[in-house]
């Protein structure tokens, strides 16, 4: 009986740790996707500034409140603007940014096609 009880307690603790580990994982993932606004070229995850420390705490609290990753992003976007996200949203201002690599890729492909394939024929 005692053995079962101990086993149960241990398994509960272990399960709890797994949950915690998941939380920390998403916490870090979110922090890595956020720009530390008062540092230069650092993510919130990398920074130890007061701003970043508080922001990490906020993320932690929000996760514990049960908010999803996307909800946390949109919350921070509302507070600090899109600039805080490392991954720029696809909209009118960022069409060029998102489409340029594809355009360059297509142009490169066209050049290769013209130079090698059509020439050989």
């Amino acid at each position: 009986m005692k053995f079962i009880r101990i086993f149960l307690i241990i398994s509960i603790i272990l399960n709890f740790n797994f949950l915690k580990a998941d939380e920390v994982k998403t916490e870090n993932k979110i922090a890595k996707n956020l720009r530390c606004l008062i540092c230069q070229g650092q993510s919130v995850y990398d920074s130890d500034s007061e701003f970043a420390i508080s922001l990490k705490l906020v993320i932690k609290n929000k996760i514990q409140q049960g908010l999803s990753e996307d909800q946390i992003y949109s919350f921070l976007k509302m507070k600090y603007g899109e600039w805080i996200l490392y991954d720029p949203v696809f909209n009118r201002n960022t069409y060029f940014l998102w489409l340029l690599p594809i355009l360059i890729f297509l142009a490169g492909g066209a050049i290769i096609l013209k130079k090698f394939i059509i020439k050989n024929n």
Partner: protein
Amino acid sequence: MKSKLFTLILVLTFLITFVIFFKGLKSSNIYTPNTILEKKIPSFELKSFENNSIIITEKIFKDNEYYFVNIWASWCIPCKEEHKFLMELKKNGKIKLIGFNYKDNFKNASSFLKDLGNPYDIVVSDKDGTRSIEWGAYGVPESFLVYQSKIIKRFIGPINNENLSEIQKIIK
């Protein structure tokens, strides 16, 4: 013909690159946030600075009055600079000053207020800085002018004489 075209393209590419970088050199690399962010003030509970009693925002902010929310800390040097302007603002009876004591300890903060004077009507303490994040703040010092539960103006960094006269113009 072909080599001429090539040179032309090369020169043009360098020229355009140069112009872009030259222009970039002059533009400010300090990010100034978009001011058309969320304007409604966040609601939350905070601990009072003096006696740890809980203060709810809805009870602080009344609709027809101006409020100046100032985030400060005793360890922050620019806060000392702006303090005299806050004292000046205090003299204008039409505005209420609310101090957010940011990541500070009680002893240092109260001696700061004792030495330089206390311009605040209410001081609340934000021990871990999470409440300031709710306001969309970057750090200390930072101030918000609030009217009808909306942020109508935001000051990042210490306020100066110009800001002071601007505020006084708005609340007149």
